[in-house]
């Protein structure tokens, strides 16, 4: 994978916004999807009631997860699916490897799974001589470019078609300069069809796991999960513990919300319900913790586990749209990623809760009503308290606290600020002040409100 970890969100975003034309395109493309979501949701009069129901079902799930996991496991076993449990990425990867090794499988096809991205499964298997091909077109393109996905639903949304054409030219031998999306998709279709037909092992993610029946649902638009799974000898599904839903009928609520929130479609083209292996096939399911139980114990942050991974919060976020998913240096980017990541590694992801204006748009579109912007604000407090805030932020905040602690200091600081802006603006408007980058400082007012009030008081 290309290394992006050395810079923080602000640093990586700075790189991204250097290409103004690309940023404007990215911003507009995601906003267009947000608008499609609005149109789709407004066609359902009971939309808000559905969000509330989904939120309550998920509250019930996270507060009864222990029993639902046991019920799900018992039903999977009854259905003939082998169940595995993994504490962390390493255990998960080792389980996948052992399943494939037992069957002598050296090549696997994988449909979209953010969990296995998070676990770095591909790298783990490749080091052990097992090749993995990502079959979702966007993820396939990202794999060709040796880059992680930048969006959970639209993995290569940050790339222009000419760049994808160049990748195809280099890796698949297409004609140089070919950049027509339909023609490029046809090339990938042909190439990946051969992959599906020759892979004995297939791995998918899980969108919803029904405790009541022991079946799991995988949603795609491309049909890649099904092409891989139904042609495989060994089918593996990897899921985080939080993907459970209690009853089959609850799928109606979630499937009505998911695609409308994600892309504005009424439903994904394929919503596949996997229950039992087909004759002669093996089915495995891996339940992965990887920080989920820890997040469950954090009162202020546990309801981030309600997320159904629609990506709606990314499409609407003004910071995400203008900084790109890769600037979040975490598998799950955007607002939801910024509240999930600090739980995984607070030090490494201490910058992410600050990658927000706290405007609240994310919480407004979330189909399961996660209070994302409030959690971003709460994470900032935890991060400062635990001593992980960047030095400049910690110092700035100390100075701010000192100034705001007394009206005299505040008044003096205000006067000084206005004086500088009027008399020697370059002290503020210079390249050493990060707030001045890509911005014009406003003209300072002549007097403060307190001064104006004292003069005009009747």
């Amino acid at each position, binding site marked *: 994978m290309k290394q992006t970890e050395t810079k923080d969100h602000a640093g990586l975003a700075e790189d991204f916004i250097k290409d103004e034309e690309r940023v404007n395109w990215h911003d507009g493309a995601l906003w267009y*999807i947000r608008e499609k979501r609005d149109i789709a949701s407004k066609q359902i009069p009971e939309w808000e009631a559905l969000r509330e129901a989904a939120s*309550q079902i998920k509250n*019930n799930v996270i507060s009864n997860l222990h029993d639902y996991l046991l019920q799900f496991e018992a039903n999977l076993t009854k259905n003939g699916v082998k169940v595995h449990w993994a*504490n962390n990425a390493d255990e998960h990867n080792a389980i996948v490897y052992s399943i494939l090794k037992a069957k002598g499988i050296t090549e696997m096809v994988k449909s979209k799974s953010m969990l296995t991205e998070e676990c770095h499964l591909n790298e783990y298997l490749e080091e052990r001589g097992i090749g993995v091909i990502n079959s979702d077109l966007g993820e396939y393109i990202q794999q060709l470019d040796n880059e992680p996905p930048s969006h959970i639903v639209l993995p290569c949304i940050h790339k222009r078609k000419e760049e994808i054409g160049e990748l195809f030219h280099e890796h698949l031998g297409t004609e140089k300069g070919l950049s027509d999306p339909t023609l490029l998709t046809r090339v990938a279709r042909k190439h990946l069809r051969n992959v599906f037909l020759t892979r004995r092992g297939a791995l998918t993610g899980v969108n919803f796991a029904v405790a009541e029946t022991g079946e799991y649902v995988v949603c795609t638009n491309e*049909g890649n999960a099904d*092409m891989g799974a139904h042609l495989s000898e060994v089918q593996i599904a990897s899921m985080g513990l939080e993907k459970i839903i209690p009853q089959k009928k609850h799928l109606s609520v979630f*499937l009505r919300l998911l695609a409308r929130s994600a892309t504005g479609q009424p439903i994904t083209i394929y919503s596949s319900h996997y229950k039992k292996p087909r004759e002669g096939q093996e089915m495995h399911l891996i339940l992965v913790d990887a920080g989920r*139980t820890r997040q*469950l114990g954090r009162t202020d942050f546990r309801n981030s586990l309600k997320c159904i991974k629609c990506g709606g919060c990314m499409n609407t976020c003004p910071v995400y749209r203008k900084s790109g998913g890769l600037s979040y240096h975490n598998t799950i980017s955007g607002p939801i990623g910024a509240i999930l990541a600090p739980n995984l590694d607070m030090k490494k992801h201490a910058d992410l809760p600050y990658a927000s204006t706290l405007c609240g748009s994310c919480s407004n579109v979330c189909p399961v009503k996660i209070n994302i912007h409030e959690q971003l604000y709460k994470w900032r407090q935890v991060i400062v308290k635990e001593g992980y805030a960047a030095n400049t932020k910690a110092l700035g905040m100390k100075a701010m606290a000192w100034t705001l602690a007394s009206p005299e200091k505040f008044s003096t600081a205000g006067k000084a600020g206005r004086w500088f802006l009027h008399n020697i603006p370059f002290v503020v408007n210079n390249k050493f002040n990060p707030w001045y980058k890509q911005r014009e400082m406003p003209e300072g007012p002549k007097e403060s409100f307190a001064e104006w009030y004292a003069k005009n008081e009747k």
Partner: protein
Amino acid sequence: MTTREQILEAVLKNQPESMPLPDIGMFKGGDDDTVRKYIDIFKTIGGAAYLVDDLEVVKSMVAEQFDTTKRIATTLPEMQDIAELIAPAIDPHLYEDVELAIIRGHFSVAENGAVWLTEEVMGQRIIPYICQHLAVVLTAESIVPTLHEAYERIGLGDYGFGGFIGGPSKTADIEQALVLGAHGPLTMTVYIIR
């Protein structure tokens, strides 16, 4: 302690006090013309839907709309003179070159265009995904308004595999440009028998 026990113990320790499940019984569709609505929605997602009198009409429309010199597979005995019957137990890879698959759908959903299929009507699980073109036959009275009625109909379900399919496979991964025919069928046609 095994990993399983460790995880279950951590979940039990960290999960909050139980919160109740909501009643979702009030969610249901309106009394609109579900057939009309289904056809309209299915067109907007890139599919084609036709209201027809019987299977004989379907047969003649198939002959008009598809290349019948190529391989056609079906689970409908009535289609045997234009298609081969799908064998449930053979290697699924053998269906790699199916041009058109004609199968029965249990029912479809007006609000989103999706057809509900189980492996029983697919013949083989791979069929509706591997074929180049997919045709589904269903009855007009089987169309339900929303997913709520759909899951009521499915119930717990006695199948090993089932799925909703709502249109031709698609992707917009390259610059948000919509392309029909990602990995699955390039087209999907639904014949609704009155």
